[in-house]
C-alpha cells in the first residue's frame, strides 16, 4: 500500500450530504475483476450526461478543479453498498483524501485499506472549507498526516484533525492489515484449538 504522509492539491467541494457509494461508482461498473481502472467511472452519473459527454456543471468537470486530489463533502459520505470499488475509483481518479463531517462505517474502513485518508472534521469546519473552496475555486489544501494539520495555501484556514493512532501508523508506513494480523498467528491457532 502506498504510504500517506503529506498531500498538497486542489480540493473540490461537493456540497451534498449522504453521498452513497452507488453515486461514487454505479454497480454497472463493478463487473471488472481488476483492482484498477475505475477512475473513469467515478461519479459517472453526475459527471456525464446521458450521451456520455461531460456534464459541465459537475464540480470535477470545471477547469479550476482539474487534477483535484482532495474532496470536501457533506456528512455520511460513502453510505450504502460496501463496494471497495468506491475508494478504488476515487484513488484511480487521483483523489487521496476525502474530508467530511462523518463517513459511513464500511467506506471508512475501506479507505484505510487503500491508503486513502478519510478526515472527519466538525460540521462548521467543513462548512468553512467548503465556503473557501467555492469562493476561491482551485484552492489548494495541504494535508499533513504526521502533524495532523490541514491548511490552505493562503493559510486563511488552519485546522487540526484526529486519526486513530493505529490507522495513522499504518497509513504513514503503508502497512497492510493482513501482514500485521499474521504476526498473531499463534493467537489464531490457539483460538482455533480451543473452539
Amino acid at each position, binding site marked *: 500500500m502506498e504510504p500517506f504522509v503529506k498531500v498538497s492539491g486542489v480540493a473540490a467541494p461537493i456540497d*451534498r450530504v449522504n453521498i452513497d457509494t*452507488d453515486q461514487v461508482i454505479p454497480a454497472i461498473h463493478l*463487473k471488472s475483476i481488476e483492482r484498477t481502472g475505475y477512475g473513469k467511472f467515478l461519479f459517472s452519473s453526475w459527471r456525464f450526461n446521458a450521451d456520455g459527454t461531460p456534464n459541465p456543471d459537475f464540480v470535477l468537470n470545471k477547469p479550476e478543479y482539474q487534477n483535484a486530489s482532495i474532496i470536501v463533502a457533506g456528512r455520511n459520505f460513502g453510505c450504502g453498498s460496501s463496494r471497495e470499488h468506491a475508494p478504488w475509483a476515487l484513488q484511480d481518479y487521483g483523489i487521496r483524501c476525502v474530508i467530511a463531517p462523518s463517513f459511513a*462505517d464500511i467506506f471508512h474502513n*475501506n479507505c484505510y485499506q487503500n491508503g486513502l485518508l478519510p478526515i472527519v472534521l466538525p460540521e462548521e469546519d467543513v462548512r468553512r472549507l467548503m465556503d473557501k473552496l467555492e469562493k476561491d475555486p482551485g484552492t489548494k489544501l495541504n494535508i499533513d498526516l504526521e502533524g495532523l494539520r490541514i491548511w490552505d495555501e493562503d493559510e486563511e484556514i488552519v485546522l487540526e484533525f484526529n486519526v486513530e493512532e493505529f490507522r495513522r501508523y499504518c497509513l504513514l508506513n503503508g502497512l497492510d492489515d493482513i501482514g500485521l494480523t499474521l504476526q498473531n498467528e499463534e493467537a*489464531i491457532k490457539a483460538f482455533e484449538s480451543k473452539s
Partner: protein
Amino acid sequence: MAAQTMFEKIWDSHVVHEESGQPSIIYIDLHLIHEVTTPQAFDGLRLNGRGVRRPDLTIATVDHNTPTWELDKPVTDEISKKQLDALADNVKDTGITFYDRFSENQGIVHVIGPDLGYTLPGKTVVCGDSHTSTHGALGCLAMGIGTSEVEHVLATQTLRQFKPKTMEVRINGDLPVGVSAKDVILGIIGKIGINGGIGHAIEYTGEAIRSLSMDGRMTVCNMSIEGGARAGMIAPDETTFAYIKERPYAPKGEELEAAIDEWKKLPTDTGAKFDKLVEIDAADLAPFVTWGTNPGMVAKITDRVPDPASFDSPAERESAERALTYMGLEPNTPIEEIKIDRIFLGACTNSRIDDLRAAASVIKGKTVNPNVYAMVVPGSARVKLQAEQEGLDKIFKDAGFDWRVAGCSMCLGMNPDILQPGERCASTSNRNFEGRQGKGGRTHLVSPEMAAAAAIAGHFVDIRNW
C-alpha cells in the same frame, strides 16, 4: 459478571487478540463470498503467496451478476460471465463449497446462508456485501466488509475491527394489521435517519419484533445498514430454534439440543446497558413508501409527498429538492396517487417464502394493471422450488407477473434486470439511491404486500383497505 448485551457476549467470545489502541482481531465463524467483491481478494492472496485458511468455513455462490432468465439460456454479458467464471476458478481446488448458477442451493447469499443452516446463533458472519446484517436475525453478529477485508478473512479467518457501540431499538406493543416487517424497518430508518446507526451494532427488541417470523426478522436486520449500522441483531428464541430445526446443514438431534442450550445464554442480560436506546410505539407504524432517493425519505401511505420548504436544515431542504427533481414528483402529491410503471418483488430484503406468500395472497385471482410490468424473483433456488410446490408461481403467473430464476436481479442494476430512465418502480428491495435500479430509474421502497397491491392498481394503495 456484569450484565452483558448479546452483542458483547458474541464479540467477547470471538476476540483472538487485543491491544490497546488497536482494532481487535475477531475470529470469523462463517464467511460468505460471491462473484462481485472477491476477484481482487483472491488476486491479493496469490500475489502474496497466501492460501485460504479455512475453506470449511467459507461458502460461495453467484447472485449479483447472474441473469434471472431461465437456466438453459446462457449468460450473454461477456464481462459478467468473466466475473462469474473467475469465482468458479478461484474456489476450484480450495475446498470451498460453491453453489454455482445451476446448483439447487444457489441464491442470494443472504437468503441461502440462513436457509441452508449455515448461519446460526452466536456466530460471527461476514460477507463482502453491506446487507450481511440480514443474518443477525438469527442472533449472530453479522457485518458487511470490503474486498480488502474479504482477503483478510480468507487469509487469516479473522477480521480487525474497532468494537462498535451498541444501540437498542425497541418496538413496543403489537404491530397493527397491515404493517409488515418492511414497514417496521422503514419506520425505524425514518426515525433514526440513514446515519443514525453509524458506529453502532443494533439489537432490535420488543413485542413487535418477537412476533415476527424468521423471514420478517431478516427483513428488519437486512436494512440495518440503511440506518448506518453495520450490524443488526435479534435475540434467538423458540421461533429461531424451530426455524433452524428445518435447515439441511444445521446441527441435528442431540447436537442441536446441546447447541440450543448454549444459544439460550445469548440474549442480552437484564440490566445490561446499551450506549443508545430508541423506542418506537408499534401503533405509530403504518405501511410506508419511500418518496426520495435514500431509505430515510419515507412517508406513510396516507401521507403526501413532503414539501422541501418544510425541512428545517438547509442540507435537508436541498436534499429533498434534489430528490423530488430526480423522482419526478411534485410536493404535496398524495402518495396513493403516484402511478407505477414496474414492480420488483425480490432482493435479499424480501424474497423469502413468507414474502412470496404474502404478496400472492394479495393478488390471488386478480390481474396486473395493463400499464405495469411486474416481476417476482425468488431469493434462492430452494425458495423458488418451495413456492412452486405451494402453487405460488401459478398465482403470480395467472395475475400477469413474470416468474424468474433466483438472483439479486433489479435490486442493484448490474445484471440484465434494470429500469429504463424515468421508469417508476415499486420495489421490495432496500435502496432507492439515484440510479440504483438503472440509470434514471425511480425507486419507491415498499413491503411485498404493498408492491403486490400497486401492481394490480397501477398506483400505491393502502394495503389496510385491500
